[in-house]
């Protein structure tokens, strides 16, 4: 068996294992409308399981995560929008339940920091380059230059 076939089979095995594991975790009955079900899947990957905090709702087999998945399922069925569902969970568990925090005054500096650091880096670079440009050119190869080698 060549290496490429081996790799393909391994990838297939991993994919199958992963999907079946994911199916095993979520026992919430699927929504009949595939568009709604798609939204459900996307949403449960967005929320943190508050009990097992580094897992998403989608991946956790804790019973609270199952309850929260059912809650999301029912809210979608009631016709709530994605934002309304996010607000609903944030009102109960706080921003912490969102894996992607919302921008607010409190965390604005964090969002702005990369830009500020980039500008600071550019300013330093410009200053260094300007300074070097003003230095006299010293040619070490020319005769008469210091010979301390």
């Amino acid at each position: 068996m060549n290496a490429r076939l081996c790799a393909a089979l391994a990838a297939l095995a991993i994919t199958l294992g992963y999907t079946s594991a994911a199916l095993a975790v979520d026992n919430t009955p699927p929504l009949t409308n595939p568009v709604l079900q798609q939204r459900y899947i996307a949403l449960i990957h967005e929320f943190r399981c508050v009990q097992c905090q580094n897992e998403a709702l989608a991946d956790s087999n804790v019973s609270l995560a199952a309850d929260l998945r059912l809650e999301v399922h029912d809210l979608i069925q009631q016709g709530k929008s994605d934002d309304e569902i996010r607000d609903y969970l944030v009102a109960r568990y706080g921003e912490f339940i969102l894996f992607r925090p919302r921008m607010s005054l409190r965390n604005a500096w964090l969002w702005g920091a990369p830009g500020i650091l980039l500008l600071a880096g550019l300013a330093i670079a410009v200053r260094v380059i300007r300074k070097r440009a003003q230095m006299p050119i010293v040619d070490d190869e020319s005769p008469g230059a210091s010979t301390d080698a």
Partner: protein
Amino acid sequence: MKRFLLPLVLFACLVIVLAFGIYNAPRNGTKEIVSPLLGKAAPDFTLPKLLEPSVSFDASSMHGGWRLVNVWGSWCVECRAEHATLLQIKAEGRVPIVGIDWKDEDAAAIAWLTQLGNPYDTVVTDHAGRVAIDWGVYGAPESFLVDPQGNVVEKQVGAMSPGDWQNKFLPHLAVRR
């Protein structure tokens, strides 16, 4: 020496940032969530009573007085540690305790209360965990102090020690009667 100054300062900054992170890391693996309910109206609920399942209890009947809402379960190990404090609060008689028996089996919960004593004025059962979600519960035991206006003024996640009750909860009762 001067050329080492900048890297040294940067390294010191890094050490401070990492030390801060380690110091503030969750002790038992879960970060304590500051409840968004604090200062807001406590969610109302109507749930069946544990000891009289045919009777439902409406939480709005508690409006006008202080109450301590305690979320527990007979499956919850820390609740056992907390139980003595709840019995002590019951004995003090300053505030009624409403127990929400969370995702539990009634028989096990009743056996628990018979064996350890019942500190609750009312115990209701939340089998589906829907009310617990409204209260933002993520790990039992959790306790909420609700004022006469119906607002949550204090919350405890994890077993409440007599010290927690004394220092975190009682001052609220003393100031705002």
